């Protein structure tokens, strides 16, 4: 079947298209315009509409043990729990797996990466993802606080052995990449360490955070895993120390690819009478000057949310600010983690400045292919806040209006009012389509050239950018219309995109023994078995680089 999306404003920076034209789709794939006069079977009139590839979110906590614990912790936020639905704190949030898929699709997102899957929670995460409709999914598996990795580094094991362990973990958990969260920090917290810097060493291992990050970066690069090591730095949210940690980590990239997550939480200085200030300029300058690094923002937006993180040390510290006053702290193998509810208030100097710092970073980092659009859902804000974030980036008038509502003390501490930049449609398409596909190593996504998967978002232009991006006019997933006028019209099931590196047999034997002897668990339990998800086609395997 041939479908023609006719006469839309096609914004496809990966293929240098930015003008009125057609897009043809056949059998779920974008194809060149037919050379014969063959009439399409279906025509979607896109006259006056903007046509882009489906958007990709590279960092959104949508599935797995910690996300599900947040659901358990906060029943009062679910719409249906209230006798008067509609006005509860997270009433608009895609909170179940079902809503997550539907709400993302309605905004034109067709792929979302769950960025913090513990190896022991891989099957759980994939079970949830298999229940998440329409969108494609992927996961990053977390390493770097685990006993084995730190022991291997301490014992001076070979790069090959370490890479074999990483490959086994990625293959068993069906991940698309590797993440490292406060490298060594969670392990140190189990030894009652309360602050952990990049060059601090984990007690009993004598291994520093820097060593762990560098070792993992080397393993990931060496294995040809397309997505660079995804790093959540030390000292998240600690004024001064956060900014020092991320600067040290960026400098440690040393020419090899590295991705830094939710950098807004690291743009904090300790200047001013409240000992809280913006270091966005310095951080943006460093990112601009370090071409091997990519970053995502983790924008804070105002309102009730919940933070979900495998950074147990920082979540424990943050639990003192929990609102409402309850949190769950996990002491699991390796990372552990925490779930801490947070209410970001526009009238709070600290929260308002966090909001401003995120936007400063978005606007000061020059290359839209190296800065990614995230709220670190739900940590900075639920993903349902995205339409407002698009508006803030694309319209300085909107920013001015938001700024007016903030405490005057904040305006003195941010350069946001002076920043005139407005993201163009093309820059938005780079940041949310072309660049994420490249970063993840999924070349048939993020663009509309022949051979691309027909994941397409069509928007109705509007001066109100939040309205434009909040409800897509059409969304096609694998060539099928799934959303019309911002409403899901067809519920399909996407796939989890994974790597499948071939694990080394000797390493497998070693891990069988290790998990059995040390933890008393079976290494098989870390595997996501073929068929466990009970879906027809749950995975799409993409290759590692040669």
């Amino acid at each position: 079947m041939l479908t023609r999306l006719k006469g839309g404003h096609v914004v496809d920076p990966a293929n240098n298209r930015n003008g009125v034209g057609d897009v043809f789709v056949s059998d779920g794939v974008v194809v060149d315009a037919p050379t014969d006069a063959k009439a399409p079977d279906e025509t979607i009139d896109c006259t006056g509409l903007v046509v882009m590839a489906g958007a990709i979110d590279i960092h959104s906590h949508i599935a797995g043990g910690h996300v599900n614990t947040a659901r358990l912790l906060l029943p009062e936020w679910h719409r249906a729990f209230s006798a008067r639905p509609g006005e509860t704190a997270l009433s608009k949030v895609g909170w179940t797996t079902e809503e997550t898929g539907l709400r993302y699709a309605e905004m034109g997102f067709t792929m979302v990466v769950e960025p913090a899957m513990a190896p022991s929670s891989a099957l759980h995460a994939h079970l949830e993802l298999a229940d998440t409709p329409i969108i494609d999914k992927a996961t990053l598996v977390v390493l770097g606080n685990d006993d084995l990795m730190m022991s291997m580094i301490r014992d001076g094991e070979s790069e090959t052995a370490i890479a074999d362990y990483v490959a086994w973990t990625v293959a068993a958990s069906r991940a698309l990449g590797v993440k490292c969260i406060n490298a060594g920090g969670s392990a140190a917290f189990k030894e009652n360490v309360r602050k952990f810097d990049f060059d601090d060493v984990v007690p009993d291992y004598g291994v520093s955070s820097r060593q762990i990050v560098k070792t993992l970066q080397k393993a990931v690069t060496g294995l040809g895993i397309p997505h660079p090591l995804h790093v959540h730095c030390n000292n998240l949210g600690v004024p001064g120390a956060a900014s020092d940690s991320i600067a040290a980590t960026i400098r440690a990239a040393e020419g090899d690819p590295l991705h830094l997550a939710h950098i807004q939480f690291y743009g904090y200085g300790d200047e001013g009478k409240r000992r809280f200030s913006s270091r966005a300029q310095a951080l943006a300058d460093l990112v601009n000057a370090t071409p091997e690094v990519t970053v995502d923002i983790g924008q804070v937006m105002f309102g009730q949310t919940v933070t979900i993180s495998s950074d147990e040390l920082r979540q424990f510290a943050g639990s003192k600010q929990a609102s409402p006053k309850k949190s769950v702290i996990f002491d699991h193998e390796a990372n552990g983690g925490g779930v801490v509810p947070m209410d970001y208030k526009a009238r709070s100097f600290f929260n308002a400045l966090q909001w401003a710092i995120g936007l400063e970073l978005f606007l000061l980092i020059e290359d839209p292919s190296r800065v990614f659009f995230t709220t670190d859902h739900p940590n900075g804000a639920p993903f349902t806040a995205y339409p407002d974030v698009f508006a803030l980036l694309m319209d300085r008038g909107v920013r001015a209006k938001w700024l007016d509502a903030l405490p005057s003390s904040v305006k003195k501490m941010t350069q946001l009012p002076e920043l005139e930049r407005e993201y163009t449609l093309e820059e938005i398409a780079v940041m949310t389509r072309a660049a994420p596909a490249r970063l993840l190593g999924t070349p048939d996504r993020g663009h509309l050239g022949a051979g691309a998967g027909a994941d397409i978002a069509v928007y109705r232009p509007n001066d109100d950018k939040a309205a434009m991006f909040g409800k897509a006019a059409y969304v096609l997933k694998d060539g099928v219309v799934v959303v019309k006028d911002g409403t899901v019209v067809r519920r399909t099931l996407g796939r989890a995109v994974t790597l499948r590196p071939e694990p080394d047999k000797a390493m497998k034997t070693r891990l069988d023994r290790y998990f059995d002897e040390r933890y008393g668990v079976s290494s098989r339990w870390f595997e996501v078995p073929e068929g466990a998800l009970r879906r027809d086609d749950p995975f799409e395997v993409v290759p590692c680089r040669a």
Partner: protein
Amino acid sequence: MDRAWIDGRPAAEADALAAAAELLERSRQPFVGGLRTDVSGIRAALGLARRIGAIVDHGESDAIYPLLTALRDGGAFLGAPAEMKRRADRVLVLGDEVAKVAPDLLAMLTETEPDLGVRTRGDAREFRSLCRAPLDSAGRGRAEHVDCAPEDIVDVVGLVRAKLSGRRAGEGAVGGDAVAGLAEFLKGAGFAAVVFAPAELGALGTEQVFGLVSDLNETTRASTLPVSASTNAMGAALQGAWTSGFPLRVGFGRGAAEHDAALFSARRQLSGDGEADLALIVDALAEPGAGGPPCALPQIAVTSEPGAVEGARVTFAVGAAGCDHDAVFYDARFGSFVGRPADAKSELPTAAAILDALADRLGGRVADAA
């Protein structure tokens, strides 16, 4: 071999499906419960429940609700058993239920020694028990027992908290010295683990234990290992949370999932005093269950037990998950979901297949609609 029964008499599966569908269609308020099945069975049960506006609960959720209630009222510190095995140098066992419902966990802790952590590794693990029966064995480790009646345990935990924070407190049920000893034991740990059964201590008692561990973490490290008689109910609650937003005890009668831990509990609905007038009960595990509430309602049974369920209007024979077919379950020791291959694959349908087939008859495939 018969696979379906109507009013106790063998029937063709198609006829049984038609009869069950008709009962569900005629019911003013169906209840879907039991839920002793695997992940795909629960997925199908929740999908069917949403389609027919049913109330849903697990037959054994009484075993886990004290934990869930405490967690969502006040938060929690939770450890993974495998991590505690390697790290906890001191273990406090509260109550006598632990030995009954989690003997494997206790054995794992008593038979091993911590091997991680500067302060914790290398030494034999130490144990304190605050309950009636002393621990059977503490391996190489030292075990001290404080005899305490079940109804006094939570009070003693409160006294230990008072002692730790330097507040004055009375003698309590076990005496001031024992309280001081427990406080010292926990405070002096490199990493303390508190093992308890929330169903024994109740929701408030569980909150008190989490409070104790929260206090300890101000200066040292500690976590908990709550144990329950029904791992299967915990898995179902987790799956309910991602599917409907709530850990079961939900009603789909008004469309969106509504949660009410009292109104929608299996005990209330199955008693006949609730809103439900028909129960669909899934019981498809090889292991015996902890026992759910009795069912006073007309019943559709989906069971791996041989033969028709006594008194059921319709019975379907299905395979036992993980025995007759591959399955995925929540595993308490692992703290997450694990795959379990079939012991010996059989021709029996899965619970999910029967529930999906019922859903098909009630208006399209709905297993995914939850």
